[in-house]
């Protein structure tokens, strides 16, 4: 598929991002900005207990208030709709927008109130009297596994939603033959992406056209289908408007339950209904939470630090229902060894329910916690041998000449040059000087450490993790599409068929189509039609859009070129192979003066049917539905599968200092080497990398959906859930390297996740390096100031180091 030229006109040039113009003037069109006439507003009543039977709901006082239209409970909604789609085969874990009879986490929606204004709906929500009978609950994943644990879903018979063990290669033998073994337990705390825009959806039902119009801030594959199914409507009666700007997502803007709720309400009530989560609703009961994962990792290695085999047990606390999240244990299979040559792997993936908020998809779809676990264990391997941590990585990294490289779990990595990326970073940072700086800080009484982390970002994949973890599910493909139309005036419009949450997809399509047609990308209008006029697409999940939407746009543009060439060849009377396309026109290679310009071609296609080649469709409208470059296949019986075609690589190098008295970590230097193949838009890739790192800093140091022992979410507001501000994100130096992917048209790979994949591991690495002189380590994220301070104090007391040194 490497038919495109490797020198580009527009691809890789530092062009502006076309979406930005509307945002800087406040003319983004977000879901909350869409003024549907006659809109009424929803507020939610949520369960305050982690587990409770709903004994009674008294709506009288709320309904008596002027301006209050409806109070909806779970039973009514359940009678009219189907449960929300679940990924796993867990029919007795039904999930619905409003709790039916039993609520299973503090914050679960129980009742929805509809009123003239949101404020009034909140007033009325306070007057809905719900009586509960509290039930036993379980919060901790390991507790949930115990035989006497309260069952979150009694009908399911256990709290285990998923427990699969995969063995790839000769794990037993490799362990038996390896002279050294090491075990480590690490924990990834419950955090998430927490975009600044909460989820918002407005829906309007037209009973005469039988049409549900939906405007929502979504990043959700199969959103129209799932909404329609739950509402028992044909999907052709659900028109999702993709031309809505999404105020950030990184995975969590799923919104099916919200949409089923407002879809039902607008149908039931006959007027448009909107739900905009407020921040509290978002934090405790939106699709807001991410993985909370406990890893037990064992590795077998030799005396030189070369790891032969790994056993990993990942126990994920997915919360009260089976959302999409258990699949987040599946994506890591696609890069289960990270960038390392580990020849055999045993992977046990366990997802348990608990009485916490439901976990949903989060940036990197479970790969970031796994990468943190892998990077922690490799450091421990180095430590156990007294080996330099960099050297331990170098010895285990896949080498450039080994690509394409098949990993034990069945994925073939496309390309990479990991050692060179690392060397470039070390050279850029002057690694020796950085070590000297660390030692100088240590000599000055600070704790200081150098953090190292590699990471692989699988991108552009299919959804084979679904059949991998649920054999009843046979979904193996995830398409993305682009249609290009040239109208009779010669204007070009390209379409994309999902909403977009800041990744610059319009710029991507414009650039790729411009590149392929050799026309200024600014000439190409990019639009996002609604779901009824859309081609198949799966939304920007899994770092897929550069590969998949970029690929679709390229192929559509190439088809357009071919059509133009065919028209010209026919019209000029030259053989096809002599008709040459350049910059919108086609000429005879042997007689370049014989040429049809853009408008000539457009006119033929649109108006001069008599000049068209026989059997050619008139007009200039082409489309391409893009399959994942490496295709889609069901997993093998032992769970080997190729999900992702492209693998980006990053190497993070940081210097951190910790005031030993305060335990407060500070990033003093941050350098990252980044290789996502060919960069289509440098500004966008730069931003994705920086933003991913900031997000990773949050997960590593600040952010946690912390619960108390009584099942209350203590971090429901931005006062307690701490997103990094500009103060907390240091300047980051990015070192670029390009190893093109052989699977994509320009050599591009995904770039939306690797900052987030590497930063938490790198920060953990730096802090552990800093703690090394004290003989302690920390294996839980986030690493909060107080925790770190208390650990350091205890360690210093133990080794008799004086406290209170200035």
């Amino acid at each position, binding site marked *: 598929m490497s038919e495109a030229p490797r020198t580009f006109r527009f691809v890789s040039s530092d062009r502006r991002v076309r979406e930005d113009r509307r945002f800087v003037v406040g003319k983004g069109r977000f879901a909350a900005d869409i003024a549907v006439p006659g809109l009424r507003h929803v507020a939610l009543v949520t369960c305050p207990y982690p587990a409770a039977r709903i004994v009674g709901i008294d709506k009288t006082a709320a309904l008596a208030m002027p301006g209050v239209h409806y109070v909806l409970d779970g039973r009514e909604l359940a009678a009219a709709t189907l449960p929300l789609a679940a990924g796993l085969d867990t029919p007795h874990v039904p999930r619905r927008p409003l709790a039916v009879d039993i609520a299973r986490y503090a914050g679960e929606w129980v009742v929805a109130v509809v009123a003239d204004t949101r404020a009034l709906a909140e007033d009325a929500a306070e007057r809905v009297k719900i009586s509960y009978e509290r039930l036993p609950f379980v919060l901790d994943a390991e507790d949930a596994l115990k035989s006497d644990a309260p069952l979150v879903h009694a009908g399911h018979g256990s709290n285990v939603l998923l427990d699969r063990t995969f063995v790839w290669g000769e794990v037993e033998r490799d362990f038996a033959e390896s002279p050294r073994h090491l075990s480590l337990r690490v924990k990834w705390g419950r955090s998430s992406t927490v975009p600044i825009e909460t989820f918002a959806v407005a829906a309007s039902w037209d009973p005469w056209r039988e049409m549900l119009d939906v405007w929502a801030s979504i990043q959700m594959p199969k959103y129209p289908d799932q909404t329609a199914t739950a509402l028992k409507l044909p999907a052709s009666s659900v028109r999702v408007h993709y031309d809505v700007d999404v105020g950030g997502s990184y995975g969590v803007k799923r919104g099916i339950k919200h949409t089923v709720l407002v879809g039902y309400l607008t149908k039931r009530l006959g007027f448009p209904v909107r739900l905009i989560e407020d921040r509290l609703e978002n934090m405790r009961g939106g699709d807001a939470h991410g993985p909370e994962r406990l890893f037990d990792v064992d590795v077998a290695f030799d005396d030189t630090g070369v790891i032969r085999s790994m056993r990993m047990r990942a126990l994920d606390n997915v919360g009260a229902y089976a959302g999409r999240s258990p699949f987040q244990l599946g994506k890591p299979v696609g890069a289960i060894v990270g960038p390392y040559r580990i020849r055999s792997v045993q992977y046990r993936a366990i997802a348990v329910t608990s009485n916490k908020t439901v976990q949903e998809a989060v940036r990197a779809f479970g790969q970031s916690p796994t990468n943190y676990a892998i990077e922690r264990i490799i450091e421990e391997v180095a430590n156990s041998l007294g080996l330099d941590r960099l050297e331990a990585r170098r010895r285990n990294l896949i080498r450039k000449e080994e690509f394409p490289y098949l990993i034990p779990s069945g994925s073939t990595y496309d390309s990479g040059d990991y050692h060179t990326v690392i060397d470039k970073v070390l050279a850029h940072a002057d690694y020796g000087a950085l070590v000297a700086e660390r030692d100088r800080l240590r000599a000055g009484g600070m704790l200081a450490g150098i953090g190292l982390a590699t990471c692989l970002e699988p991108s552009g994949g299919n959804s084979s993790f679904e059949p991998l973890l649920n054999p009843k599910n046979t979904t193996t493909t995830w398409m993305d599409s682009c249609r290009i139309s040239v109208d009779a005036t010669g204007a070009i419009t390209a379409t994309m068929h999902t909403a977009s949450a800041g990744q610059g997809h319009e710029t991507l399509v414009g650039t790729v189509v411009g590149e392929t047609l050799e026309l200024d990308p600014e000439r190409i209008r990019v639009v996002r039609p609604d779901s009824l006029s859309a081609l198949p697409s799966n939304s920007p999940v899994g770092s897929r859009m550069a590969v998949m939407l970029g690929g679709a746009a390229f192929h559509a543009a190439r088809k357009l070129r071919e059509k133009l060439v065919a028209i010209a060849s026919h019209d000029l009377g030259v053989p096809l192979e002599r008709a040459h396309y350049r910059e919108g026109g086609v000429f005879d290679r042997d007689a370049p003066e014989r040429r049809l310009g853009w408008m000539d071609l457009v006119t033929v296609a649109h108006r001069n049917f008599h000049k068209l080649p026989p059997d050619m469709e008139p007009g200039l409208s082409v489309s391409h539905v893009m399959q994942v470059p490496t295709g889609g296949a069901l997993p093998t019986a032992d769970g080997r599968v190729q999900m992702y075609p492209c693998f980006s690589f990053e190497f993070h190098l940081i210097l951190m200092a910790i005031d030993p008295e305060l335990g407060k970590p500070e990033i003093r230097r941050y350098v990252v080497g980044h290789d996502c193949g060919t960069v289509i838009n440098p500004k966008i890739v*730069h931003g994705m990398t920086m933003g991913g790192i900031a997000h990773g800093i949050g997960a590593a140091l600040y952010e946690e959906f912390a619960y108390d022992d009584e099942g209350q979410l203590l971090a429901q507001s931005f006062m307690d859930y701490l997103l990094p501000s500009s103060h907390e994100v240091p300047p980051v130096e990015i070192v670029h390297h390009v190893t093109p992917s052989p699977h994509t048209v320009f050599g591009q790979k995904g770039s939306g996740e690797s900052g987030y994949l590497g930063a938490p591991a790198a920060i953990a690495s730096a802090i552990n390096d800093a703690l090394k002189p004290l003989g302690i380590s920390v294996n839980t994220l986030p690493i909060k100031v107080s925790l770190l301070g208390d650990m350091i104090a205890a360690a210093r007391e133990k080794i008799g180091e004086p406290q209170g040194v200035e």
Partner: protein
Amino acid sequence: MRVELTVNGAIHGVDVEPRTTLLDALRDNLGLTGAHAGCEHGVCGACTVLCDGAAVRSCLMFAVQADGIAITTIEGVTPGPGELSILQDAFCETHGMQCGYCTPAMILAAHALLTNNPAPSRGDIVDAISGNICRCTGYAQIVDAIALAAERIRGVNRPPEAGA
């Protein structure tokens, strides 16, 4: 309650409940949707507008408190249809945003900074936007945008060189 809001130089009479925040009044009563609700409890800064030139959180002000105050929204710093201010253009130049949700507020915070401090250090810029949370960018390209705009504004305001 009736309140007269002076927004972007024009006076608008609006009827609001006392509990209506300035943010909601701007968005719902005046259709100025450039200010966004992010947290509605004064932490994220997505609702930032200028009140008498100072960046403030419009979710922490009730509309009834705002009469007589010169309120400037993102719509008010945009020179005209299709035209960008130097600051807005600089945000485009560095791609100082991704999803665009926090962007108008960020630009207004930057606007307030540059009005008072035409030559801010990087630290000044970081501090000035520290009350505006951006989840997408990691802030680097935002800081770059503001530094670039400051430089360009200083250039524009510099007297022409002799002989030029």
